[in-house]
């Protein structure tokens, strides 16, 4: 990467406890968006991109005021205790405390940075930047705001889709205000459910189940644990690799954009009590949902009982 481009906003990407998943996701952005991104944003440092400057130098220049910091992107969970999580030889605890008031915006990218996620299950000091699972607080505290007036902007997902990350940053860079939901996620992306745009919706309407993974037919909600109707994410609107999504390829949504993602145990099973689903789609009461299901099951849509290739 070129070290400094004048006139562009600066971005630094750091990592806490992470599997690199969001970095890899970020790097799979399509060419068009990448071009737009790199024409507008100067990546001062990203741990897995080759760079002329080392992190310690970038860090020093920002701390000394020689370089401005516009976007601080954090991937991975962090610890509320010193000397537990390190990045490029520096304590992440220190980095965050030193940079939190210097950056215009801070983005937590991926569920670990947002909620603590899996790493937080095993250590009570481990947190997301402004949440720990569903509780607000996290590393920076409930009321923390960056220079821009925004709180930590959470781009949830395990991993987050590259377009959600890039478009959020570009929107802010272009001066647009973005609306955040109750978990500080941009509404532009997270007001949708994974269910929206799912090509199996006809099967959902008529309650026709899929019994195995990878088939084109059937809804994955009833038996295979799909969380599509309960999960905020535009996975079926902004497709992965521009092509597909879990549910399109016959894999249930596992709810990875929600705080409770690591708190559930059986990802491919719909929890039922005496055959009745314990959780129902968002926005509907269990009573209404069960009544509706009963009605839909009474009728048969002949089209949905055939292999798709065999339909007229």
């Amino acid at each position: 990467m070129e070290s400094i481009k004048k006139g562009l906003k600066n971005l630094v990407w750091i990592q806490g406890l992470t599997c690199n998943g969001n970095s890899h996701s970020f790097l799979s952005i399509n060419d068009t968006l990448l071009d737009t991104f790199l024409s507008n944003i100067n990546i001062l440092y990203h741990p897995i991109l080759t760079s002329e400057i080392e992190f310690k130098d970038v860090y020093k220049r920002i701390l000394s005021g020689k370089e401005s910091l516009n976007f601080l992107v954090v991937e991975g969970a962090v610890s509320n205790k010193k000397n537990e999580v390190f990045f490029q030889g520096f304590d992440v605890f220190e980095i965050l405390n030193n940079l939190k008031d210097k950056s215009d915006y801070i983005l937590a990218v991926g569920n670990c940075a947002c909620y603590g996620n899996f790493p937080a299950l095993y250590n009570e000091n481990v947190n997301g930047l402004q949440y720990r699972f569903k509780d607000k607080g996290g590393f920076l505290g409930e009321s923390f705001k960056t220079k821009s007036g925004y709180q930590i902007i959470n781009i949830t997902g395990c991993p987050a889709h590259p377009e959600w990350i890039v478009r959020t940053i570009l929107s802010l860079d272009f001066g647009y205000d973005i609306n955040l939901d109750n978990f500080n996620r941009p509404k532009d992306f997270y007001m949708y459910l994974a269910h929206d745009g799912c090509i199996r919706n006809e099967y959902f309407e008529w309650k026709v189940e899929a019994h195995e993974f990878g088939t084109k037919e059937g809804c994955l909600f009833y038996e295979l644990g799909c969380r599509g109707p309960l999960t905020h994410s535009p996975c079926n609107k902004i497709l992965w690799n521009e092509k597909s999504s879990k549910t399109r390829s016959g894999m249930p949504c596992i709810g990875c954009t929600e705080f409770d993602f690591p708190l559930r145990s059986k990802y491919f099973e719909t929890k039922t009590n005496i055959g009745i689903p314990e959780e129902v789609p968002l926005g509907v009461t269990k009573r209404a949902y069960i009544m509706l299901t009963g009605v839909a099951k009474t009728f048969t849509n002949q089209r949905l009982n055939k292999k798709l290739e065999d339909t007229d």
Partner: protein
Amino acid sequence: MLIRKRLKEKKKEEIVNVALKLFAEKGFYNTTIPDIAEALGMSVGNFYNYFESKEELAKYIMQYSSNILGEEIRKISEMDISTREKILLLVRRFIEIAEEKPELIDYFLRVFLSNREVFKEGCEGFLCVSSVVTELMLFLEEGAKKGDLRQQDFFPAFVTVMGPLGGIVFLKGENVLPKRPIEYAEDIGENIWRALKKD
């Protein structure tokens, strides 16, 4: 407009109560619309302002009765008592309703279950009894969620509840019970509880 609508609903309710008794006593085919109109003191023509046909009335009665029973189950579901007590209460309430309004049960046994052809269109599956089924689903689901009831499919659990209830009112109808059905409520409730409980 609202008042007129409410009056119409009230009149429909009157028709339902009278027709329910006639259907339960004489059967669906032996009861005519003129019989129903006469019992209500209304003209046959006026009857059609409320129901298009005898079949429509029969389906409406089923939904109406299902809503009454569903509402009772719902009330019990929402009570702050143990699952065992809820089951005992459910049995007691069912038998009480059967004693207070025997025509409801007779209608179910002697019209709904015996004249399936009448209910073929518009009452498929659980369409006309969905209140009872839905409320029982929620009732049983809650018990299993609390860990009181054994996990299983819905239908075996459903017939475990409904079977004994249908059975006892049927025996009452056949006049073979030495005691009043309500006197068996406790034992029946206990049987259902033991059949469904965990362990």
